[in-house]
């Protein structure tokens, strides 16, 4: 009886220790970023409310994001940026490159940005966007479940969310973005 009890304790204890140990080990994975909010692609932005915002001065012609979304026959990309956001500048060259290769596919929304500041930024650094507005009141940001700028969303032709990048398109996120875009384009 006593030996059986002891054995039971030891077996149970070993299993528990292994389980908890592997959980903590999983927690140490450097790929994890516990500080950031877990983003999900299982969300559905409400496209009927898409595109409320303020046109950027000088970019009024390109202010109809909803039209741009309809004009894109294949998949399309929505990118949130801001002129005050430093990481956005890291991905900006790639965005220019991407829109040159895929004209009409990239829609931009300036998050919490003054329309004049955003317009200046695009004039100085180049405008990658087929259509762009300032997201006044952050209506679109909340609609898209934004967790920070920059954040990039890849949508299929039917408007389903295929991929999102909760950070600048550099390094691993850029590779994933390219894969997602190629898969969506086929």
């Amino acid at each position: 009886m006593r030996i059986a009890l002891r054995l039971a304790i030891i077996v149970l204890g070993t299993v528990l220790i292994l389980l908890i140990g592997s959980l903590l080990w999983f927690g140490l994975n450097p790929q994890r970023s516990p500080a950031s909010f877990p983003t999900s692609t299982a969300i559905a932005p409400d496209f009927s409310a898409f595109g409320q915002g303020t046109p950027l001065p000088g970019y009024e012609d390109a202010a109809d994001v909803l039209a741009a979304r309809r004009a894109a026959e294949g998949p399309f990309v929505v990118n949130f940026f801001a002129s005050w956001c430093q990481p956005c500048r890291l991905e900006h060259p790639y965005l220019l490159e991407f829109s040159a290769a895929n004209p009409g596919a990239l829609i931009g929304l300036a998050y919490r940005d003054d329309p004049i500041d955003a317009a200046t930024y695009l004039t100085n650094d180049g405008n990658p966007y087929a259509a762009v507005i300032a997201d006044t009141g952050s209506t679109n940001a909340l609609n898209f479940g934004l967790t920070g700028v920059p954040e990039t969303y890849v949508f299929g032709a039917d408007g389903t969310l295929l991929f999102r990048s909760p950070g600048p398109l550099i390094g691993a996120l850029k590779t994933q973005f390219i894969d997602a875009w190629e898969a969506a384009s086929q």
Partner: protein
Amino acid sequence: MMRRTLLSLFALLFASTVSAHAQSIGEVRAKALFNELRCVVCAGQSIAESNAELAQDMREQVVLLINDNRSDAEIRDWFVQRYGDAVLMNPPLKPLTFALWFGPVLIFLFGMAVTGLVLLRGRARLRNKS
């Protein structure tokens, strides 16, 4: 100079309550909901506790939805649809969270059983001695 951070619909909406003597029902509801939604940029705080811009946006959205006559449950759903379950400070009850919600009761029942055993054996030892 950019004018971000300044627009606070929340305060504008309640500007009319200045010098009024009671809090509006909307104000109380908003406050309760702020405590239930997680700020998505600030490591586990609710939007009530954060001054981050997205938290301000979320607070404004809550107020907008309240003024749109949505119920508390609808407002929670609105955020879950766009941010996933993790946006709720209080995880919803579903198979994934059964262990979380029923765990405390199970822990307590297990503890009760052990306690009962300890008390019974303590009494048995007392009787054996006398």
